[in-house]
């Protein structure tokens, strides 16, 4: 694949697990990558593991659960992209996510998983819209979103926090966001990575839940498997479907097809991020 201008792809949560495997694959396929990690040290460590000349990859770090940091990140990325020959983004992969064993609030007072797994990608996509004119947006969802409805009565699980419900809901939010973005003319897909051997279940967890994840992940696949789905979608931006697993469009939660649900979620998310996509699209 010989191209004069490298297509730029952003990957969040790029320093480990699925994000890291995707970065490697993207580089192999000749894409230029902007990798976003949560900490400087993890970015440095990831950088050392990649044997590719510097111009192909650029690292940024930000705590995406914090909206101020998402905003700052977006402006840093904008500056960087505008300094490149292409000055356009080809693809944004909202992959960063996590599980938190305990109810915790972000700087904005939002429940941590909702903010990190859903709102961060929602906001980052919005902020990068000016660079994504013909670009595509991917979200890392999960098949665990399937048996879940939006918990409207208490969307932040403030009454009684249950880690898996909060996680599943955040992943359902990803698919719903994809649906709504497509309605607005922004090409978008959700990816179901399947059960993958990553550290997602150990970073924010303790005790038994951590043990369960460590056992469970043994039957999971290598992160390279879901990474190929991201590559597939980057290479086939006109693929038909919304929700992809193993490079194929597969079925998703019926809740996603309920317009009332998705528009309500989209409006709430806009409010919680203090943004309006309608205005953003006019820019």
């Amino acid at each position, binding site marked *: 694949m010989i191209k004069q201008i490298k297509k730029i792809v952003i990957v969040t949560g790029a320093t480990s697990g699925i994000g890291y495997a995707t970065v490697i694959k993207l580089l192999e396929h000749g894409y230029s990558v902007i990798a976003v990690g949560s900490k400087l*040290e993890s970015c440095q460590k990831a950088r050392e593991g990649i044997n590719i000349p510097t111009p192909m990859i650029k690292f940024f770090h930000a705590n995406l659960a*914090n*909206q*101020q940091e998402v905003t700052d990140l977006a402006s840093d990325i904008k500056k960087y992209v505008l300094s490149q020959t292409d000055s356009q983004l080809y693809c944004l992969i909202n992959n960063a996510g996590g599980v*938190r*064993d*305990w*109810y*915790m*609030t*972000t*700087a*904005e*007072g*939002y429940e941590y998983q909702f903010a990190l797994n859903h709102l961060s990608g929602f906001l980052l996509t919005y902020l990068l819209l000016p660079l994504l004119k013909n670009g595509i947006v991917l979200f890392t969802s999960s098949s665990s979103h399937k048996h879940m409805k939006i918990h409207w009565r208490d969307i*932040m*699980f*403030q*009454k*009684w*926090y249950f880690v898996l419900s909060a996680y599943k809901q955040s992943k359902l939010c990803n698919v719903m966001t994809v649906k709504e973005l497509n309605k607005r003319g922004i090409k978008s897909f959700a990816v179901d990575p399947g059960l993958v051997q990553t550290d997602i279940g150990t970073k*924010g*967890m*303790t*005790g038994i839940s*951590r043990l369960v994840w460590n056992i469970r992940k043994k039957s999971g696949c290598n992160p390279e498997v879901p990474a190929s789905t991201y590559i597939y979608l980057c290479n086939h931006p006109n693929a038909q479907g919304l929700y992809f697993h193993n490079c194929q469009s597969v079925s998703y939660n019926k809740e996603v097809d309920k317009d009332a649900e998705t528009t309500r979620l989209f409006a709430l998310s806009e*409010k*919680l991020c*203090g943004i309006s996509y309608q205005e953003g699209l006019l820019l």
Partner: protein
Amino acid sequence: MNVFITGAAGGLGRAMAVECAERGYNIVLTDCDKIHLEQIKNGLSRQFDVNIETIVCDLTDKDAVMTMVQYLDSKHMRFDMMLNIAGIDNEGAFVSRECDQIVDIIKVNVEATLQITYEILKLRNTPFYIVFVSSLASQFPMPLKATYAASKRFLFDFALSLSVELKASDVSVLALCPGGLVTNPTVIQAIDAQGFWGKATTNRLEIVSRKTIQKVLHGDTVYFPGFLNNLFRFITPLLPRGIVANLIHQRWIKSQAKWLKTCREPSTSIADTIVKQGI
């Protein structure tokens, strides 16, 4: 209901602010961290239709406190509830720290808390409700967190005495005594380093926030969240204090060693992150 919250940009303060806003209370939030104060204000105003005022104030600066109080008074603000969340815990072994670091614990947890409570009481409505954030640590002598635990003991006893003094004036005072609270991602690692007991004594932030308000409104004077923490509270007074201190010392040393092994920044002590509240 108008509520005054200190340490509102930190973990517990933020959760309490969310709880109050959810109940439809108007809130005045204060903290020394301007950026985070602005962020929590944004987050709350997007979710709830209540009045939210934020004031940046270093509570250890008496002049700043007086300026803030005068400002509140000039706007004719009166309060129905005050949540004293601001507090610090940057302790380790006494001689391993700078003296100022240790003294700061008393300055923030005790002096500043007394000062702001004194002033806000002048702006109170009746009935009035006050919450002091003490800690499970207030119940034991705590080697390696000696000053912190003692400062929390101060608040524990002070709250109880104050509640008796002000009962006739229709003021209810509650001492909240949580175990660990997960207020940021680092705390999860710290709890993990403490093993079983760490997790067992950790309280759920969302439940503690809600019940604290319920309890103070109900007129309770102390609130120890969690069954196990209550058990500790009743059992430990039966043991000689010297033995308790030794047991706790052993436990901190163990978890500190484990923490140092897993932690990437070896300079951070486990005592820095466990039971971190407020600021």
